């Protein structure tokens, strides 16, 4: 199939729309996660969504995105509370708490998944596609619901932009001003879970973390302003969503999720190298320039110091 035919195919158009939305969603909320130093929280929440999805499937017996959304939401909220509880109430540090919740929830998810596969649930084929994502299975209804969720997420972010910004940069100041930071904290977590749920179908639980982290980190290289960073991150997320989808439908039998992640990684490496001011090359240039000018000025000062002054011989 050549490229033009591919673009004109209505199925592909829906899938492209879905991955574009997923990239935008996770780019927006990923910025806040990154600034709040909670990047790996997205990873833990994505893994934790698996048992939620399995339970939702076992209860409803269908693969509806709404059911999965609720299941993943409940599991994500439980995981968030568990991580908070462990770090608060015991001497276990946050990284270990994240690791524990991530692996135990994922383990339970795998148990439920294999249980579903071994027992006589009809219509269960494709549930394991949630592990690595299966963008090709998205249909127009899924994408419409994703669009709604995405719009909701962006609307909330737009509405509470100032609050989220101050909580991300200086929570103590926000507290002093009387903002309900606990509530805002929970809200950002909730939005994170929502973004994870939107992405799971296309990217899968295992790699969803990349969609939250990589666009945000890449965007951070280019700007120091939060609103530019958010716009840039959602653009990067959207571009990698579309890029990965196109790559996977051009090649044969390649999974979409990892290709989306790899597209985002390529953009990250590009930003790492070529971003003005913060990029590796820009830094090298500055260093080289500094070296040259200091050498020059040292040489100059040596010259002037050693040069015999006229009229004094």
């Amino acid at each position: 199939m050549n490229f033009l035919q591919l673009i004109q195919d209505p199925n592909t158009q829906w899938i492209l729309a879905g991955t574009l939305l997923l990239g935008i969603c996770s780019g927006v909320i990923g910025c806040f996660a990154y600034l709040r130093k909670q990047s790996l929280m997205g990873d833990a929440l994505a893994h934790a969504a698996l048992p939620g999805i399995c339970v939702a499937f076992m209860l409803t017996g269908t693969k509806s995105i709404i059911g999965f959304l609720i299941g993943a939401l409940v599991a994500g909220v439980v995981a968030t509370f568990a991580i908070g509880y462990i770090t608060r109430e015991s001497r276990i540090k946050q990284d270990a708490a994240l690791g524990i919740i991530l692996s135990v929830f994922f383990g339970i998810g795998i148990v439920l998944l294999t249980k579903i596969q071994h027992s006589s649930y009809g219509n269960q084929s494709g549930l394991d596609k949630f592990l690595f994502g299966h963008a090709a299975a998205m249909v127009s209804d899924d994408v419409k619901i994703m669009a709604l969720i995405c719009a909701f997420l962006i609307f909330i972010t737009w509405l509470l932009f100032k609050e989220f910004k101050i909580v991300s940069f200086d929570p103590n100041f926000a507290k002093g001003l009387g903002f309900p930071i606990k509530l805002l904290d929970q809200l950002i977590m909730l939005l994170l879970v929502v973004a994870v749920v939107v992405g799971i179908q296309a990217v899968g639980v295992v790699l969803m973390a990349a969609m939250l982290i990589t666009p945000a980190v890449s965007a951070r290289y280019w700007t120091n302003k939060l609103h530019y960073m958010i716009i840039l991150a959602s653009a990067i997320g959207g571009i990698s969503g579309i890029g990965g989808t196109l790559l996977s439908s051009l090649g044969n039998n390649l999974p979409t999720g990892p290709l989306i992640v790899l597209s985002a990684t390529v953009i990250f490496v590009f930003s790492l190298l070529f971003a003005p001011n913060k990029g590796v090359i820009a830094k090298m240039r500055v260093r080289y320039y500094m070296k040259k000018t200091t050498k020059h000025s040292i040489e100059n000062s040596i010259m002037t110091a050693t040069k015999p002054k006229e009229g004094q011989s």
Partner: protein
Amino acid sequence: MSSFWIILIGSLVACSCSIVGCFLVLRKMSMVGDAISHAVLPGIVIAFLLSGSKEPIFMIAGAIIFGLLTVYLISMFSNSGVQADAAIGVVFTALFAIGVVLVSLYTRQVHIDLDHVLYGEIAYAQWDLISVAGIDFIPRSVWLVGAVFLVNILLITTFYKQFKLCAFDPIMAAALGIPVVFFHYLLMTLVSVTTVISFDSVGAILVVGMLIVPAATAYLLTEQLSKMIVISCLIGICCSAGGYYLAFLLDASIAGCMVTIAGLLFTITLFFSPSHGVISKMIRRKQLSRKMASNDATL
């Protein structure tokens, strides 16, 4: 007999993971362990594609290279201004994605399917027998996992003092002339090797459960590093045996059940540990406040 082998392999995996896991938990590097366990996948696949055989030596070499590459990339990015946990997230997802793409590209040649990546194939390990020194009834995995277990024990006991000091006070270790960076990378090498060997039995992703959960559970039970390692190994063995029977009961994945049991044991410890449990702390606080109140009354 089959259940004996499965439990034995599971226990050896859990013990090898716990030994290195204790140091990861103490050094606040649990998520680096998670990253390594994901990132060795491309190493395994590339080693397989280059050598064309499933010989463990190539797998281990591939895993070590990619494990150390992961650690190096993470520290490079975090030194260049990216936040540490974001650096971890970027690096391991990229490497894991490469691994998954390679697996799907070369499915026919690699003989690894994605389920295997996720939760291993411990149930089939027992039929893969190998003859070593005339003994031919012991499965291949037992030799492999046993060897890694011994290597871990040997290295950790030989350099126990150095590892301990690096874990608790790296600055003092450096001041005493211990090559901290060398021991850091040695530990990361051990994590990579343990991960790749555990790959067959618990899969790349659940390995992180075996690395962190028993060690964190033991951390809530004792104050001494040596005791912590022994306790975490015992917990690992319980997880392996309990997980096997749970899997048998539920007809589900053995590796998943092992991690589920580990989570259960952790939850119990979190609440009921005599020294650090939530409930025992609460009781102690209450006793203290009662004592204070009676002291006030007598005054």
